[in-house]
């Protein structure tokens, strides 16, 4: 009996960790190019709304999913213009993007509150889902979860083994060196911003198209901020982001279950748990700063003349 509960909890962990994983990977991609984007929360919720609306109008959730990525890219392009054209402050621009995104999505989504859209439904992977325990935890989800499994290794390959990944990392580490090597740093940073925005949008769409199939206001509920913190926990490595995302997914799934089980603990305390964990995780990871792959020029704009 308890075994089944644990398996169900772990499966729920994967599911609630997936949107955070998408967003964290997006932020890693952006930050690796040297741009800090604190607008994750706003980009996610815009993606969630875009995915929901497109799926609802067309009846095709896959179309909605990609539309969410596209809207994510478009939203972060605002950040790109501020940081790369006007050399604006990256922190301020990112915060503005969060405020803009949440406000806009909640406003535009008012008429959709409480309505449903066709979303993704679980699909057991043949053979793999038959593996005891592992199969139940990892391979009985909606297709978007399987997509999320593929991104970390692909992103790692991109960073470590491709010419463009090397260029992107150089743009984030030492733009002057990249320029001297004949690379277009601004173009790489655009790639980082817009590409990262795509994944953030996907993370939002996961919430509206797979996690709930519903639209409610403030759907993202701070998951974008958790993603920003997780980038630090992950030491800017896509592989470690998986552990971080599932850790948070786990605590979110757990607190839901605890609330449902009618525990004595006040629900506000339980709701607080993920954010308490964020603080703890940040403190712990700052202790091991030296092993981190933090880009040396993170948050530093490139001069207009470069």
């Amino acid at each position, binding site marked *: 009996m308890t075994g089944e509960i644990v398996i169900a909890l772990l499966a729920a962990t994967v599911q609630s960790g997936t949107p955070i994983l998408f967003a964290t990977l997006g932020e890693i991609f952006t930050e690796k190019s040297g741009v800090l984007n604190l607008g994750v929360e706003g980009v996610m919720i815009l993606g969630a709304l875009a995915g929901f609306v497109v799926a609802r109008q067309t009846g095709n959730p896959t179309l909605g999913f990609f539309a969410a990525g596209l809207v994510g890219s478009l939203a972060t392009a605002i950040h790109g213009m501020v940081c790369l054209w006007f050399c604006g402050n990256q922190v301020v621009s990112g915060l503005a993007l969060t405020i803009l995104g949440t406000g806009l999505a909640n406003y535009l989504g008012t008429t959709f509150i409480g309505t449903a859209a066709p979303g993704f439904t679980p699909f057991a992977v043949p053979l793999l889902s038959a593996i005891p325990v592992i199969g139940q935890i990892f391979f009985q989800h909606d297709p978007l979860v399987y997509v999320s499994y593929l991104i970390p290794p692909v992103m790692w390959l991109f960073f470590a*083994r*491709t*010419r*463009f990944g*090397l*260029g992107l*990392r*150089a743009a984030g*580490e*030492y733009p*002057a*060196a*990249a*320029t*001297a*090597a*004949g*690379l277009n740093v601004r173009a790489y940073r655009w790639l980082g911003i817009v590409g990262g925005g795509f994944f953030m949008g996907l993370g939002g769409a996961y919430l509206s198209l797979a996690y709930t199939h519903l639209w409610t206001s403030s759907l993202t509920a701070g998951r974008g901020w958790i993603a920003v913190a997780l980038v630090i926990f992950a030491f800017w490595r896509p592989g470690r982001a998986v552990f971080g995302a599932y850790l948070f997914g786990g605590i979110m799934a757990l607190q839901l279950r605890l609330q449902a089980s009618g525990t004595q603990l006040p629900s506000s305390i339980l709701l607080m748990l993920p954010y308490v964990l964020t603080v703890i995780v940040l403190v712990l990871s700052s202790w091991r700063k030296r092993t981190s*792959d933090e*880009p*040396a020029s993170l948050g530093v704009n490139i001069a207009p003349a470069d």
Partner: protein
Amino acid sequence: MAGPPLIRLAGICKSFGKVHANRDVSLTVAEGKILALLGENGAGKSTLMAILAGQIQPDSGDIFLREKKVQFTSTEKAIKAGIGMVYQHFKLVEAMTVAENVFLGQSGGWWLNWAKMHRQVVDLAEQYGMKINPAARIRDLSMGEKQQVEILKLLHRKSTVLIFDEPTAVLTPAEAENLFATMKLMVGKGKGIVFISHKLEEVMAIADTIAILRRGEVVAGMAAAEVTSTAELAECMVGREVLLQVDRLPLEPRQMVLKVTDLGDYGLRGVNLELRQGEIVGLVGVAGNGQKQLVEMVCGLRRPTGNSLRILGLEWARFFRSAGWDKALAYIPEDRQGLATCPGLSLIDNFLLTTRGGFVRGPWLLRQQAGIKALRLMQEFDIRPPDLGAFAWQLSGGNLQKMVLAREFYRKPRLIVAEQPTQGLDIAATEDVWKLLLEAREAAGILLVTGDLAEAIALADRIGVMYNGEMVDLFAVDDAEKVALIPQMMAGLASGEPSAV
């Protein structure tokens, strides 16, 4: 070398506002030759090389690549044409490996094959007499090794013209020898080299032809073989006889300002030193033989154990606890832009960084009064531009150094520690700094740490040689016999009598 010159510059002109950075400059870089470019700071070397590297465009004039006219409208174009630049400040990504840096920005397919790339780097390095681990991270390398990576980057791109911007400034003598050997191998393989340097001896030793820039113009061009002495080059550079000999009248040494007895912390071994007001003690030696540790302890940046360091008659700890110690001690660090000043602050703020005496009332800074005083000092020390609002980063090295000296000397310190005070300065600025140091010794004892033996001999009353944490010898500068032995002492080959003069 019958072929056309690799690069020919013809009548290059470039102005920034009213300043002519380059005026009608014509130069030729030939295959298999080293062209040395000499000139004081601000003579236009950097502008010229930036034009050649495609960073800026000339106002007029042409560049010919093997006698074919070309225009370098971007750095990429210059790189493609085979122009490679080894910058003074390395353009390397510290967190990446040697191979990653070498292959950064290289064209090719999507995928990178690291095993193959590591092999390529090693092969290339061996061809040019270098040894390097391709998997090492840049941040773990020495300055000399980092420079090798810069060179490898260019060689891998098959650059045919390599520009070295003061490459030996950051190297130890042994590393510089290696660099010269590599350069010889490169010209042996038909590459052309432009070598920018202040160091006349190096230029004489390695260059085939020498071009001297002054105020943006080429004032002299000659084959290195025709040059008989470095003095000849120096004269061309400044356009007047250089008096690198300053008049030094010995003063009567007075009160003891620094006394070091048997100091053995942080890798030092039994160092003894006495410094009195009115004298300069020059500390020479290859960098990394304990000079830094000694300076940092004297300046209060490191705590010596025991009671072996006394400043103005007080024990180290008591001195730094005493009120007004900061008025008595002046530190002129090697790192002008980092330790001595804040590049992003105006000159007046930089002035107030260490000198607040008389310019504070309660918690308030009297900026106006400080400004008046600072402006007077700037005129007195001939700091240009004489603009208090200018930021420290806008000043040239020489002017910034004079500003630091002006600030420190204003407080009338009793003990001055000057570390490489003229490194990277042109001859005129060096002379100014030397004169200022000699004047300052009226009221202070000066510990001069320098890598330039000529500087120590010109300024110091006594010279101490450090090797491996030990003070090999400390002797009066008139002791010609000992002075002649300094190079051997620096190399740890000769040990003078360990004496406390």
